[in-house]
């Protein structure tokens, strides 16, 4: 693993952290102010800060530090949570998101000076009313935008001038030593070490520390064994031994104190040959009332007894530790990270496996071995593997939904409309590729809803509605597909205006008789825009047709339900995956086609006379009291030698989004199986009425019918030919 890969992990994590923080703040906004919620926000920001420091993103680190300090205050209760504060934090989160983007090289580093000042002010302003007795340190820490406590070099722990004094003092001592002749020639100063019981607690091992002094070039010149009591009174946990080390002048005193940093007052250190060995601290007497933390060693004068003669063993653990939130959200579950490329390779291989399995089944069937137990088993396993592989690629749609609050905030500030967001079904899972490509159309639909759908507060009040608009966003699984709804409670589509506009633009004939659905669909026409003045929110009318194209590219459909005065709902129907789907294999003359099972309602073999002609080209069938148009598939696809009389073929009743139900006339149904979808666009070109292609068990290529497109197109054609 190299630095780039770790960095990539960091950025992926940033996205998750931002989403988690966003979610937490949204909960805050909704009135949940508990510790866990705030801590989730804190942890998100904290985690970004940690990585930012490690990877050297100074601006990002600086901003997260300020933000984190405020969040820390909020979490600790020193800063009260107000609506204003939450808005400020939401704004900070947006800027943080920009900082992360800048760190990735996807944008400019935002100018956060004013915001940092505001965040700092929030700490300072609230510190005065805070219930905490000593808010002052918080304020001073906050005012300094620097992050000197984080640079890995704890400068504050070491008083540099005092350290220089120490060295000077040690040099003096060395002069005295050299005359005595007892010490080694280069011994410049001495340190006396007496570990106490505390040096052996918490898994510490004094021996390792003594070895480290030796590694520094120190020499053990004396071991004080005078304090060892008689065997019957010995307490193994007490430090009875003391060592005197001579160290060369080149070694700084700080290097020695650093070794004993972890044990703090669990070990007494004194510097200078003349100072007496610190006394033994019996365990029994050492447990006293809590005293202030140990004084930093190096700040004390040289050649004097220092550090930890008195303070006790560490106080009893305060209730600072503990079990955090027991119900872990699913996103926090146990997981591993896999490179997407590897996963795609697996999915591809699974696709090939499905084909290979089908080919083998066909071959065996040809040999008269159609129903063998092994084959059934293989089929079941193949399906299991495929479903598991799909599940790996599946992600909750929440990652897309979590971006919506920010979009809404920007919209509300630019339009001045107040919009409340209601989200449901965030945990609905769908393919990662679909999720990634969903962001753009979703953003556009939301902008459209706020800009064109929801009215300004005055207009809403006049219409007897709440001044605050509501945007609902939902996702759900339905029969192998995902439905995503974006609804507003605005004014609905003004069909008269849409029609007038379409006529004006020359999109429809002035005398055209269009159904409500057809008028609604006009807003997806290229170049259509109903806004009287072009706003910078919804753009210049290039959006909605792009939205429809995006959704179509994902193998999905988009439908509109709108009621004047009540609101508009856009429904996106998307496939669970782009790679494999269930299909019905049918024969039409000399062609084999696949009808996606998601569209199929039922199939039936009509009796003679059941299919009734209606005009020259139209035929209908009455299916349990409901008249459904019959479409001979061979005409649509131009197949030769197909069954022409309905009673000799099979009717497949399909459900479409735009045109309701229709019955496709085919020669015969061959099979129902999974098909691996191969894009026609990438291998050939996009063809109207064809969703893609697949490879059949016998190795032949079959086209997958785009039922919606085909039915809508065929009905329109019939309509035209009738009109002619």
């Amino acid at each position, binding site marked *: *693993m190299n630095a780039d890969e770790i960095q990539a992990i960091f950025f992926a994590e940033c996205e998750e952290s931002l989403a988690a923080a966003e979610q937490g703040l949204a909960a805050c906004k909704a009135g949940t102010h508990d510790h866990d919620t705030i801590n989730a926000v804190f942890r998100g920001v904290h985690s970004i800060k940690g990585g930012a420091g*490690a990877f050297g993103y100074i601006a990002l680190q600086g901003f997260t530090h300020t933000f984190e300090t405020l969040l820390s205050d909020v979490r600790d209760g020193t800063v009260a949570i107000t609506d204003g504060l939450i808005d400020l934090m939401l704004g900070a989160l947006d800027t943080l998101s920009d900082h992360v983007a800048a760190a990735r090289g996807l944008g400019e580093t935002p100018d956060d000076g004013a915001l940092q000042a505001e965040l700092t002010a929030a700490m300072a302003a609230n510190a005065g009313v805070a219930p905490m007795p000593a808010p002052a340190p918080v304020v001073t820490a906050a005012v300094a935008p620097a992050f000197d406590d*984080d640079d890995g070099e704890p400068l504050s722990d070491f008083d540099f001038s005092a350290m220089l004094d120490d060295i000077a003092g040690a040099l003096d001592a060395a002069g005295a030593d050299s005359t005595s002749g007892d010490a080694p020639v280069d011994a410049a100063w001495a340190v006396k070490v007496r570990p106490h019981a505390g040096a052996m607690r918490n*898994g510490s091992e004094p021996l390792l520390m003594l070895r480290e002094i030796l590694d520094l070039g120190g020499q053990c010149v004396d071991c004080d064994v005078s304090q060892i009591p008689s065997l019957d009174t010995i307490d193994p946990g007490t430090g009875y031994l003391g060592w005197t080390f001579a160290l060369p002048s080149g070694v700084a005193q700080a290097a020695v104190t650093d070794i004993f940093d*972890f044990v703090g007052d669990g070990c007494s250190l004194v510097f200078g040959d003349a100072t007496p060995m610190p006394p033994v601290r019996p365990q029994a007497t050492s447990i006293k009332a809590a005293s202030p933390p140990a004084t930093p060693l190096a700040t004390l004068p040289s050649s004097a007894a220092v550090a930890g003669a008195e303070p006790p063993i560490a106080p009893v653990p305060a209730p600072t530790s503990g079990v955090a939130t027991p119900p872990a959200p699913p996103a926090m579950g*146990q997981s591993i990270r896999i490179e997407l490329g590897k996963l795609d390779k697996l999915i591809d291989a699974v696709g090939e496996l499905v084909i290979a399995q089908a080919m083998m089944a066909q071959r065996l069937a040809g040999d008269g071995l159609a129903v063998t137990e092994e084959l059934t088993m293989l089929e079941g396993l193949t399906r299991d593997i495929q479903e598991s592989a799909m599940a790996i690629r599946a992600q909750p749609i929440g990652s897309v939904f979590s971006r919506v609050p920010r979009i809404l905030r920007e919209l509300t500030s630019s339009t001045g409309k107040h919009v409340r967001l209601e989200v449901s079904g965030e945990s609905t899972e769908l393919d990662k590729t679909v999720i990634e490509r969903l962001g753009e159309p979703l953003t556009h639909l939301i902008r459209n809803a706020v800009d064109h759908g929801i009215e300004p507060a005055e207009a809403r009040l006049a219409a007897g509605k709440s001044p605050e608009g509501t945007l609902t966003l939902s996702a759900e699984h339905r029969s192998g597909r995902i439905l995503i709804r974006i609804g507003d409670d605005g004014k609905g589509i003004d069909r008269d205006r849409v029609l007038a506009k379409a006529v004006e633009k020359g999109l429809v004939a002035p005398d055209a008789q269009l159904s409500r659905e057809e008028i609604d669909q006009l807003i997806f026409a290229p170049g259509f825009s109903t806004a009287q003045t072009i706003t910078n929110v919804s753009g210049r009318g290039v959006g909605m047709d792009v939205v429809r194209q995006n959704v179509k590219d994902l193998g999905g459909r988009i439908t509109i339900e709108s009621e004047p005065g009540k609101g508009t709902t856009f429904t996106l129907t998307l496939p669970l995956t782009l790679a494999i789907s269930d299909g019905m294999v049918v024969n039409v003359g000399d062609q084999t086609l696949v009808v996606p099972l998601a569209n199929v309602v039922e199939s039936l073999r009509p009796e003679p006379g059941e299919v009734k002609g209606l005009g020259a080209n139209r035929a209908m069938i009455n299916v349990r009291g409901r008249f459904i148009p019959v479409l001979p598939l061979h005409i649509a696809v131009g197949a030769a030698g197909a069954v022409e009389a309905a009673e000799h073929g099979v009717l497949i009743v399909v459900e479409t989004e735009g045109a309701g139900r229709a019955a496709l006339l085919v020669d015969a149904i061959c099979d129902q199986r999974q098909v691996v979808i191969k894009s026609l666009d990438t291998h050939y070109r996009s063809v109207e009425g064809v969703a893609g292609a697949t490879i059949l068990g016998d190795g032949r290529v079959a086209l997958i019918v785009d039922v919606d497109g085909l039915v809508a197109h065929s009905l329109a054609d019939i309509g035209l030919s009738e009109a002619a």
Partner: protein
Amino acid sequence: MSNFSETQPAPNLTPTSEPACMNTTTRILTVDDSPSMRALLNHALTTQGFDVAQAEDGLAALDWLALNEVDVVITDINMPRLDGFGLIERLREGSRHRDRPILVLTTESSEEKKARARAAGATGWIVKPFDPAKLVAAVRRIAH
């Protein structure tokens, strides 16, 4: 169901100047909810010949420790489900890990934070963002 990965020492082991604790490979469990921090720790430690396992929070660490032996534990403090101090407390409760060297990852090196880590039962600490050399030095200082 496990959410940790064991990393074998990198094949291009750089020879260390300290043979004392290198007779057998020192095994380290790193506990952090941040994948990038785990990756950084993993990188810094495996390149120095340590055997590194990862867990994403205190509970995952306890699960792993129930089935595996380890020489040193390095843990973050603020984590979901079970935080670092909670993990140390749980480990110190039993005899098996009472003397286990445990380092906490902290963003501050103030005396207050050190005292708190000590009180919680940590053997030592590593200040984030860490210098890989200091990380290794801290591990060697406490690895038995």
